[in-house]
């Protein structure tokens, strides 16, 4: 094993790097009521810079939070995602907890280990891949599961897993079966884990076959949960509400049926969001009096209309 990243001593970061990290650290600190809570995202941030929890990174966290380096190290060594040696550009993790192991995870790990010539928690000579046996990653319905930089590669076989590591070794992009459009590097991923968005949230779908298995069956069979009476809250989608309330004329002279239209919601049900629709005659709910008018970004008409 070699270090793909230059080893830094306790001298800390060059000034321009430190300045950038300090700005990030301020953003992280602002998320928490107490500064110490920022330690875990700060350690992810350090890994986004150095590819592991470097001595310089430990010193940085300690200085930002005003705690000792020993305190920082004690936390960093507790969690398996914080690396004590330079990590490969891609962590390839094969789940070998019971269910995935039984379904083929053990065999997949063995084949990858042979191909890469490394064992658990070791890194290829070129620094491309760190191989890990990982614990259950909450995707058991897709067993056997492999994670590459913590993106899902579901329903793996030795062949499919080998194809992924071969692509990485050849410097090609790899795409998870559920997740972003491509797997980003360990450092890029670590920056996301530090809480900085990378603009990839909309990539990929809602879920794979197993995620949708029950929903798809329910759709086929026409099974639904008991319907919700949306008008309870003083508003619902127009069609559903009309269906429930009926279409007969309502209201007498002087009642709220005489109310002059004042907003788009009074005349055109499609123009505003469902919640803001005047509720057709239904039992008035106690929220009617509590709802302030004009609050939020849309007019709250329901409070006056409900009383009919």
């Amino acid at each position, binding site marked *: 094993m070699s270090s793909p990243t230059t080893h830094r001593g306790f001298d800390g970061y060059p000034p321009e790097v430190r300045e950038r990290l300090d700005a990030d650290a301020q953003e992280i600190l602002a998320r928490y009521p107490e500064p110490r809570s920022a330690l875990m995202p700060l350690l992810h941030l350090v890994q986004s810079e150095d590819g592991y929890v470097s001595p310089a990174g430990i010193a940085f966290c300690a200085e930002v939070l005003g705690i000792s380096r020993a305190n920082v190290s004690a936390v960093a060594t507790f969690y398996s*995602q914080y690396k004590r040696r330079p990590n490969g550009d891609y962590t390839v993790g094969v789940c070998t907890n019971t269910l995935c192991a*039984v379904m083929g995870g053990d065999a997949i790990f063995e084949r990858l280990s042979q191909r890469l010539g490394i064992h658990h928690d070791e890194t290829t000579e070129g620094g491309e891949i760190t191989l890990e046996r990982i614990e259950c990653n909450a995707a058991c319905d897709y067993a056997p599961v492999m994670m590459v930089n913590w993106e899902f590669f579901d329903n793996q076989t030795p062949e499919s897993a080998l194809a992924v590591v071969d692509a990485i070794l050849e410097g090609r992009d790899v795409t998870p079966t559920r997740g972003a459009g491509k797997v980003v590097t360990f450092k890029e991923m670590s920056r996301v884990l530090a809480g900085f968005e990378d603009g990839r949230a909309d990539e990929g779908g809602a879920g794979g076959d197993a995620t949708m*298995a029950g929903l798809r069956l329910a759709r086929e069979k026409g099974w639904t949960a008991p319907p919700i009476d949306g008008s309870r809250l003083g508003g619902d989608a127009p069609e559903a509400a009309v269906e429930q309330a009926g279409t007969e004329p309502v209201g007498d002279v002087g009642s709220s049926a005489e109310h002059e239209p004042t907003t788009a919601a009074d005349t055109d049900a499609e123009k505003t969001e469902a919640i803001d629709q005047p509720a057709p005659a239904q039992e008035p709910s106690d929220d009617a009096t509590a709802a302030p008018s004009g609050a939020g970004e849309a007019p709250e008409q329901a409070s006056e209309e409900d009383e009919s």
Partner: protein
Amino acid sequence: MSERAMLGPVLSDIWDAEKPWTLATYTQHHGYEAWRHAIHQEPASLVDVVKNSGLRGRGGAGFPTGLKWSFLPPPDGGPRYLVVNADESEPGTCKDIPLMMANPHALVEGMAITSFAIGANHAFIYLRGEVVHVYRRLLAAVREAREAGLLGTNIMGTGYDLQITVHAGAGAYICGEETALLDSLEGRRGQPRLKPPFPAVAGLYARPTVVNNVESVASVPGIIRGGEDWFASMGTEKSKGHGFFSLSGHVARPGQYEAPLGITLRELLDLAGGIRDGHQLKFWTPGGSSTPIFTAEHLDVPLDFDSVAAAGSMLGTRALQIFDETVSVVRAVTRWLDFYSHESCGKCTPCREGTYWLREVLHRLEAGQGREGDVDLLLDIADNIEGRSFCALGDAAATPVKSGIKHFREEFEQGMHTPAWELFPYEANALFTELAGAAR
């Protein structure tokens, strides 16, 4: 509909819509209607609705959610917190991660309502760090909700403020234990705290805190919108409402099946196409590896909190790991103990040392090198962990050992002379080995 509806998608109901993780799609499907209503209610009335709905915690223990909220002491002017446990790491459990991937706004809306109900102005999602795309979706959902004025300061002109922080862990099963989670969120090693005081009294930063599971909190908007009676119309007398049943392992169509509580494994297997072709059910977990295993005898146990407990296990997280007759129980239990031993935080002796020795003994049984009396030794060690460890991890580690021996003692006895892989060839377990074999 002539057939009884076996499934009832509620949280999963928008998963097949266009980009269901976006605010636009969520809003088109009644998203944030409950929050827009709730913010004008008396907080105490929201606690009552959830209490009356019968919602019980979906993270495994099944404690009534509304009751947990009501344990917070009266406001004293200082901060109070909501922390969502999104550390889903229990072997077999795979419901919260797909939920947050597909529909993170259900969680965010539930957090807004819950925070308002308990008087919190800052709420946290503690997400395990090993699911980067789910983290992206949560960060985006919170940002979208804030930009739409659904979170932030003076929300909808009411004067109520709420900040949500999405926090990524870094790989530690123990952080699913609520007090270890709080220590971790405070920037420390994730080790459990002595209880009492409970988090309701002294939680995050020693302030009153509610810690709830993702699915529990995500179920709150539906309860507010549909009402307590709507929620209680699903499920059983003491286990009301809907929940995800996550089938994995040797079933034809593994996956997420959202159904009223009280459905049976027989019914679920029927929906999932049964055990894989040509095989039979051998053993299964009703709610993850920390719940005592069941066998084919238990196919008709209603999967609700009380029925599963009465049958000798726990509903847990409804993580149904299915193993067919090709699988060695000794191999399965040994691997689970590798896990518990690895994840034991080291704080208390019974768990730290006990899981180590269970693992040692199990490994020699798996290799067919067990010694006379090893099976009783396992039971003795398990008994010395159970009830004597600091947190539930120790009890959880004892569970598969004890229930495995209870149902399959002869397999453990065979470990005195024959390796598990000779009794149950491991190639027969894997899906692809079988396929490759059939193709040859």
